[in-house]
């Protein structure tokens, strides 16, 4: 045990957490804030998931059965906004809060007070967004992309939608600033940039992406707001504006946003696969360069979402090839994960299972993305269920599985208890089977021409849709098992976790006791030879 750990034990007695609700309201401790982010995102995941189940129940058979079309559209819109901004992004910020300081040997995040703010803005934002469900005209129903002029027909909910997006953006930007400053300024003395674990690296890149594009989204929705209330015509053709311009600005944010949601998952998986392969990460530095190139390319591909808006041939070719180019660094990553496993002494605990499923299923999502990148073919795929299948493959068995893998991997360190391995494995298999049952058939109905965002459909799509609905309900119910597993761990039931938790994992986070004390690394640790993977 290092001296840092002993120090941590001492200081814990001096200033432990405050008691009761005030601990959570006023906390500036990165572990508390990380936990709050994770719990918040789990709640949002269940809320957004329930909305998905409303959608899938309605689509179980053709015809209208449970909800009217207007409410259906509200569900698709709210489901997307909640999952993107409420579940996936905060979950990664939560993981960053918990793990970045532990992985680089820092005592806390660099700006703890701001950290508290960036979390507490979120419940306000989502409270505001959720309240629109009860307003005149209902919740926003124009899709999460908020295209004008449709979005301008939103009822009383409109300004609340805009302000909640502003707040979510503000929270993400503050979180991102905190992550960057922490990584740049708070590393233990021997923790050079290229010694940093992949999770820290991918988060550093993600944080820069966030700072670059969240303000652009804020600008776009501000223009919507002034168009609606202050007589501007940014997007109103009658006043000389152009609604297509919104799509350009939105997707200038939107495409980097998809990497914001996946790069940290790349990082998590890059931590887990080496541990359970008992080998160093293959090609660590090339992983860093690959992630950086993905981030760079994400800025010059946005119009692949707009092939059907009418674009000169040169534009179509440029955006098509630039998009396909992203497959190269992504391929490097997948290759390196497989290379890490090659001839490793692999075992298949729950985190590893989720990580492996991530590699396979995310790659399927990547391939359907390549298909969508083909400009002439995209005209057929555009706005069909094929698109729905594509982005759900990269987001559910992609981003969400990445998060789940990370939670199983680090939860023993957070709680000091091993999760129930048997239940974890059951959760994994149920999730994997049902997620494919849900989203794989969507490829077929999409290719056959079923449009997205509709409450009713032609009877030829009935069979695949009921399969997808059964899958969705199965997937949703399986997540309750996850909640049970987490609650059990948090309530300190189950086997006590050792400090190392796994079989000689690398990284500073495993040098502190389990559960990680309230204060860690009050004095910077020595990064000894062999403590990291490089």
């Amino acid at each position: 045990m290092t001296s840092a750990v002993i120090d941590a034990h001492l200081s814990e007695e001096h200033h432990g957490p405050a008691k009761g609700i005030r601990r959570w309201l006023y906390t500036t401790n990165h572990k508390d804030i990380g936990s709050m982010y994770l719990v918040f995102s789990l709640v949002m995941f269940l809320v957004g998931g329930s909305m998905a189940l409303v959608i899938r129940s309605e689509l179980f058979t053709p015809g209208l059965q449970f909800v009217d079309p207007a409410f259906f559209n509200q569900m698709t819109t709210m489901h997307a906004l909640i999952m993107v901004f409420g579940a996936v992004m905060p979950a990664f910020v939560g993981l960053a809060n918990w793990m970045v300081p532990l992985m680089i040997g820092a005592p806390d995040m660099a700006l703890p007070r701001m950290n508290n703010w960036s979390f507490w803005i979120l419940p306000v934002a989502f409270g505001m967004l959720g309240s629109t469900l009860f307003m005149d005209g209902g919740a926003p129903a124009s899709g999460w992309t908020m295209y004008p002029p449709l979005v301008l027909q939103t009822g009383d909910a409109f300004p609340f939608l805009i302000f909640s997006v502003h707040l979510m953006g503000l929270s993400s930007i503050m979180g991102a600033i905190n992550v960057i400053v922490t990584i740049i300024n708070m590393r233990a003395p021997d923790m050079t940039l290229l010694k940093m674990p992949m999770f820290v690296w991918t988060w550093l890149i993600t944080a820069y992406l966030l700072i670059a594009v969240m303000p652009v989204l804020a600008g776009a929705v501000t223009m919507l707001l002034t168009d609606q209330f202050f007589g501007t015509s940014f997007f109103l053709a009658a006043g000389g504006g152009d609604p297509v311009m919104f799509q350009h600005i939105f997707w200038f944010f939107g495409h980097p946003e998809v990497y914001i949601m996946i790069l940290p998952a790349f990082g998590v998986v890059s931590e887990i696969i080496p541990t359970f392969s008992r080998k160093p990460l293959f090609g660590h530095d090339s992983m860093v360069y690959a992630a950086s190139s993905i981030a760079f390319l994400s800025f010059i591909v946005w119009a692949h979402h707009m092939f059907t808006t009418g674009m000169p041939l040169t534009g179509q070719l440029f955006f098509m090839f630039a998009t396909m180019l992203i497959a190269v660094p992504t391929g490097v990553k997948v290759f390196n994960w497989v290379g890490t496993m090659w001839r490793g002494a692999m075992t298949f605990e729950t985190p590893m299972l989720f990580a492996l499923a991530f590699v396979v299923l995310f790659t399927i999502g990547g391939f359907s993305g390549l298909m969508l990148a083909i400009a002439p073919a995209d005209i057929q795929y555009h706005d069909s269920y094929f698109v729905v299948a594509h982005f759900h493959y990269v987001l559910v068995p992609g981003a969400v599985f990445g998060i789940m893998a990370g939670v199983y991997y680090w939860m023993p360190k957070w709680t000091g208890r091993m999760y129930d391995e048997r239940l974890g494995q059951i959760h994994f298999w149920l999730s994997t089977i049902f997620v494919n049952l849900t989203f794989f058939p969507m490829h077929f109905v999409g290719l056959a021409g079923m449009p997205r965002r509709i409450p009713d459909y032609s009877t030829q799509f009935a069979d695949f849709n009921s399969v997808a609905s059964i899958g969705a309900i199965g997937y949703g119910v399986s997540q309750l098992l996850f909640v049970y597993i987490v609650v059990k761990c948090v309530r300190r039931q189950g086997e006590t976790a050792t400090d190392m938790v796994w079989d000689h994992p690398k990284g500073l986070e495993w040098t502190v006791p389990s559960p990680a004390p309230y204060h860690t690394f009050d004095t910077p640790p020595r990064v000894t030879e062999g403590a990291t993977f490089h």
Partner: protein
Amino acid sequence: MKDNGSDNRKETLQLAGRLVLMACAMFGFGFLLVPLYDAFCEITGFGGRTNQAAAVIEERADASREIRIEFVTTVNEYAPFEFEAQLPGMTVHPGGMYEAIFMARNLADRDMIAQAVPSVAPAQAARYFKKLECFCFSQQEFGPGEEKDMPVRFIVDSELPDYIDTITLSYTFFDTARLSDNSSAARHGSKQ
């Protein structure tokens, strides 16, 4: 970090400040995209954008070539107007000047202000389609039930690429009562 606390604190705040500036700059960049996009459309004809003020071009008809011009009219949403082209289309020689008449009628029993927004397809033809005079250059006022014949005079530039033999000129008619007059005029001004 207890050892060099104040030093580190200063660096932290400096870096955080720079990142805040970066975020603000990107917020500005979002708005900068608006004039950039306009300029881009103006230059390339992207999105079928055509000139919004009288073009100056010499008339010199090239009788050896014929181009078909098709007219499309749309009334936006609930605007209470009837709006049609007198002819469905016409055949022109590049370089020659032609006039087409569009007819609009106010179906409401009150004063109305309308704005026609033009668009040219294919987009590659947009910058060769020069309007010398157009009812779309300014807002049109209508009395209750008033009917108007509105002319557009244009020249198709003889530089028009060979592979284009048909050009569609489309107008969408908007009820601009929603937009305050000032902001709308200002925005049109900025386009020229």
